């Protein structure tokens, strides 16, 4: 049955007068009544919290904007003169320190004149994320784009070819290190985790199942820092004489193994949550194991676990800062090193704020993107 159209209604009954709902039911006033001043207790909480928020905001603006020092003059010798910063210490922010140290924070000890190479790598990474996030690019070619970008990034970082000067891996540092560890860590840990999750659920291959269980339980039972130490100190002992794997690569492998174990349990949770009938229906239709997994169970399971998956991704992104324990200089470490500059003594809050903003930018992008994906998938099947 179709609802009567407006014309039909006009012909038979007078159209009801459509007034705006009164302000007490709809609009900002009503919203505030319902949500902020709903009774004495609620009003009291609103007032107290409102006061605290405004007070905090006022303090921050006074510190961060009104009293802040944005730049400092240079002395006759050309060095920066931080006196004005010292004078407002505790009262105002010293953003001039960021202006001076941002390149060290971002790029670490990478040779100053070559830092454009690291900057280019950052742009390549962001471009790679952007392309990978767009569903229009979800094709086979995306794998090739990843490999190509990887090659370009490492060529830029290492140099030694195409007229680029060689930069030893010890000198790498800053945000590119964080992104390298997180990106390749997650990109490789994810497929690994899917295989491990499938292996752990396998009923026909008890040996594979055993192996997966041992892997997950062993890795989960060890702190990441311990794993990094092992990768750094013990792993070379097992290698034959003369073979030496790069320190960053060793850390990267430790990360992949670590994240793989955690993600595997998330993926397994998704597979577990699927009704048994899905796999049975696929079996009954004669699909092979891999057809069943790739077309039926895995797509549904992964969709179910997007929130915990992204949770693990974000946690892991931040965990990359632990590589400082084995002497790799990631973004957090180079930023902390920047604080040690005697010129900018006492400037730490400003630097931490900038570091926090960078981390938040990446993590928030991840979480809001994942929410978008969930919405799209929900809309597609209307369950």
């Amino acid at each position, binding site marked *: 049955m179709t609802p009567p159209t407006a014309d039909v209604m006009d012909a038979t009954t007078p159209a009801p007068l459509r007034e705006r709902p009164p302000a007490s039911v709809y609009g900002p006033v009503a919203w505030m009544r319902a949500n902020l001043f709903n009774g004495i207790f609620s009003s009291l909480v609103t007032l107290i919290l409102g006061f605290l928020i405004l007070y905090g905001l006022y303090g921050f603006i006074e510190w961060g904007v009104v009293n802040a020092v944005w730049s400092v003059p240079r002395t006759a010798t050309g060095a920066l003169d931080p006196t004005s910063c010292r004078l407002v210490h505790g009262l105002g922010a010293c953003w001039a320190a960021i202006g001076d140290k941002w390149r060290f924070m971002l790029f670490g000890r990478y040779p100053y004149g070559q830092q454009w190479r690291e900057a280019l790598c950052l742009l390549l990474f962001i471009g790679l994320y952007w392309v990978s996030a767009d569903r229009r690019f979800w094709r086979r070619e995306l794998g090739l784009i990843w490999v190509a970008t990887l090659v370009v990034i490492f060529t830029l970082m290492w140099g030694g070819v195409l007229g680029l000067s060689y930069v030893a891996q010890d000198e790498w540092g800053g945000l590119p290190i964080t992104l390298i560890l997180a990106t390749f860590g997650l990109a490789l840990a994810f497929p690994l985790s899917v295989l491990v999750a499938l292996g752990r659920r396998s009923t026909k291959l008890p040996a594979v199942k055993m192996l997966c269980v041992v892997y997950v339980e062993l890795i989960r039972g060890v702190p990441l820092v311990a794993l990094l130490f092992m990768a750094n100190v013990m792993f070379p002992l097992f290698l034959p004489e003369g073979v030496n794997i790069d320190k960053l690569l060793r850390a990267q492998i430790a990360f992949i193994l670590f994240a793989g174990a955690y993600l595997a349990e998330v993926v397994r949770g998704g597979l577990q949550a699927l009704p048994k009938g899905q796999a049975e*229906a696929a079996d*009954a*239709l*004669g699909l*092979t194991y891999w057809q069943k997994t790739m*077309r*039926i169970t895995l797509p549904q399971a992964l969709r179910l676990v997007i929130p915990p998956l992204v949770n693990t991704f974000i946690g892991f992104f931040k965990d990359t800062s632990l590589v400082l324990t084995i002497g790799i200089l990631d973004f957090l470490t180079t930023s902390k090193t920047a604080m040690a500059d005697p010129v900018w003594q006492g400037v730490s809050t400003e630097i931490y704020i900038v570091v926090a903003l960078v981390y938040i930018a990446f993590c928030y992008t991840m979480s809001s993107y994942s929410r978008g994906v969930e919405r799209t998938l929900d809309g*597609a099947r209307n369950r």
Partner: protein
Amino acid sequence: MSQTLEAPAIALEKVNKWYGTMHVLRDVTMNVAQKERVVVCGPSGSGKSTMIRCINRLETHQEGRIIVDGTELTDDLRALDTIRREVGMVFQSFNLFPHLTILENCTLAPISVRKMPKAEAEELAMDFLRKVKIPEQAKKFPGQLSGGQQQRVAIARALCMKPKIMLFDEPTSALDPEMIKEVLDTMVSLAESGMTMVCVTHEMGFARMVADRVVFMDRGEIVESGTPARMFEDPQTDRLKLFLSQILRGH
């Protein structure tokens, strides 16, 4: 009966199965002839679902032999593939794939198992969707359909593999009463097309209308079997009498 000359479509010989120590199938022996339509009934927990699920090896039997369309069910994966290609199944809970459209649900197996070209598979799927009277839903997702429509899609999906045998495991038990008829109508027209069918159901009206034979199971064994008229009007065993009285009281 026609099963004397041709090899039977399905043959179960002294099939036994245990869940742990619970004996769920006891010496089940049954032949289903080509184009025969068998209805299996019995109280819940009688092993009828387990028996039908053994036929395409969603459950494994531990003793005895099961031969489907001339191929014996063993651990051999190739034999299993052959059998699953020839045996379609419809489940109580539909088990449509919720992330695929109705059309994709129907074309997935023909394309990936039978290696049928996509256009041909879609044409075939639309044919069957027309037969189950819901071609207009092809682009929708299962979650947007009613239970009866979903079950009809499930039937069409199984038929798209052009199976020789169709198994139905309580196809109407999860449906609201007003939707049972549309699914049964579909099954009746399928039966009239000469498909070999084994159907676990409590729909005695359906059994009377299409079944060549009714098999009554209780506590893991086949107690009695015969034509629907004979079974319903002249039950030989007390267990069947009791079951029929319970069923009839319920209706």
